[in-house]
């Protein structure tokens, strides 16, 4: 009887063990089931590179190029801000900060990662957006730039914690060797630690960027939501994620608009899948 009970339990453990694969496949299948129907209205090429997104006009124009460019612009801006700051902070925490401060900083970074994106969006909307508007004399502060700044803060915790991890796992004797040769602490960091941790840091940056591309609420609240091809970073844009979040509420189930939004979901899923698999390869290269 006990044998039988254990047999059942072990099978249950196996099923739950592979459940993650099941869910990933399930997500993809259901996105595909709803999203691929868009091909009936618009060719894949026209969908990805069409220059206008007017989903409810007659006939509907379903080109997501403006949304892709919006996502890219905001992400690029966020990466430019968050990568140097994030990696710098990671080096400070891993190498320079005293032990006590290190613990506090790490807990603080974890707290930043935990702040809900809708809260960051809210605070960005009423503090950052007016600031951007006044500094650059813009008609509105809800621009790609504001989005980039806010998103940089969402990417930083990921970048800091994974890069710090990578620096921490560089073998101690690398550092001791450099010191023994008379290198200063900074020379050791710059010439020995950073190159040794480089694949982990690349992974950190990629995962940070992955977080930014997938971020929805904050970006929807502060980028101004204009689905046109952006000409500069000072204009309102709309990202892939924000389009889904903003329009799915009004889209009728089974309409071409509904299918198109799921097709955007497929694009996002594929992007995040590619980023995560590549980052994972970089992380394993290190070991």
């Amino acid at each position, binding site marked *: 009887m*006990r044998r039988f009970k254990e047999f059942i*339990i*072990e099978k249950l453990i*196996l099923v*739950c*063990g*592979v459940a*993650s694969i099941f869910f*990933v496949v*399930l*997500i993809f299948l*259901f*996105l595909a089931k*709803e999203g691929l129907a868009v091909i009936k209205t618009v060719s894949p090429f026209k969908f990805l590179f069409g220059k206008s997104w007017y989903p409810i006009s007659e006939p509907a124009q379903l080109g997501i190029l403006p949304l892709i460019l919006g996502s890219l612009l905001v992400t690029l801006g966020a990466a430019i801000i968050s990568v140097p*700051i994030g990696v*710098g*902070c990671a*080096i400070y925490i891993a190498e*320079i900060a005293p032990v006590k401060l290190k613990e506090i*900083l790490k807990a*603080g*970074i*974890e*707290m*930043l990662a*935990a*702040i*809900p*994106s*809708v*809260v960051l969006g*809210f*605070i960005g*909307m009423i503090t950052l957006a007016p600031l951007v508007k006044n500094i650059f004399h813009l008609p509105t502060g809800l621009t790609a730039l504001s989005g980039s700044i806010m998103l940089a*803060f969402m990417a930083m915790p990921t970048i800091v914690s994974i890069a710090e991890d990578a620096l921490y796992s560089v073998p101690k004797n690398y550092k001791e060797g450099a010191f023994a040769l008379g*290198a200063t602490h*900074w*020379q050791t*960091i710059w010439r020995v630690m950073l190159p040794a941790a480089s694949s982990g840091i690349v992974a950190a940056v990629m995962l940070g960027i992955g977080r930014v*591309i*997938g*971020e*929805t*609420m904050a970006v929807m*609240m502060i980028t101004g939501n204009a689905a046109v091809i952006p000409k500069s970073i000072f204009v309102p844009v709309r990202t892939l*994620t924000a389009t*889904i*979040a903003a329009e*799915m509420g009004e889209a009728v*189930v089974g309409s071409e608009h509904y299918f198109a939004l*799921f097709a955007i*979901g497929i694009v*996002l*899923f594929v992007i*995040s*899948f590619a980023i*995560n*698999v590549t*980052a*994972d390869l970089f992380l394993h290269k290190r070991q």
Partner: protein
Amino acid sequence: MAKLMKNPYRTQKIAFSLLILATLLIVVPVGLIIVIIIQKGLPAINWQFISDIPRQGMRSGGIFPAIIGTFYLVTGAIIFALPIGLLAAIYLSEYAKDNLLTRLVKLAIVNLAGVPSVVYGLFGLALFVVFFKFGASILSGSLTLGIMILPIIITTSREALESIPQSFREVSLSLGASKWQTIRHIVLPNAIPGILTGTILGLGRAAGETAPILFTVAAFYLPQLPNSIFDQAMALPYHLYVISTQVPNVDEKIRYGTALVLLALVLFMNLVAIIIRYRFRKKKKW
């Protein structure tokens, strides 16, 4: 620049100052965000705000239904995700061999963690709301959130299980206990703090997310409490989104108050998780 590089100590000084600057550029804005929300939100918080329903088109009254909605959603998510996540962690730490299947499982977990939250929303809509016909309901929202927090629970629980020394298992097995008895009576009890940390982190994440519940459960304005898991519900993060972007002329105090309640809830859970983990690491018996 060439001249500066010649003096390694001066270079070091400049470099270290820049690193400190980078750290401050993260710490100071985050501190400011939290201080502003506390300062402007605190005056709004009183018993009525916590316990009353929203009134006058959400321009006055309280946020009670949103708090309750979030409570239901989070509870539902954890009921779904904890057993599956824990068993999956046991599989990875105790049973999995170093083969292709294990590699795929790990890759799947990494990918689940990276799927954008709004894509979870779409998935929940397609599977639970439309395909299973649960409609926009607490059930649909909980299941969607549950799948979303699965990777957090698996990763932290697995870390806790793997930190138990191999010798514990060997002693138990050598005394004639079966593999499952060893896991049940030796490995799991020692890993409880770590599992708890993962659970609380998962709860915090589920409480704060908006995008996955947008189309699966969230009600714009629902002045009564849900009666069953097939009802729609309000939720704190969605409520904050609604009153800050969709409803004009909401008193700033109410917006900040709602943000404060949500932020406090999420940060409190994370703080608890950090403290449990910190004490667990300090008290480790091995």
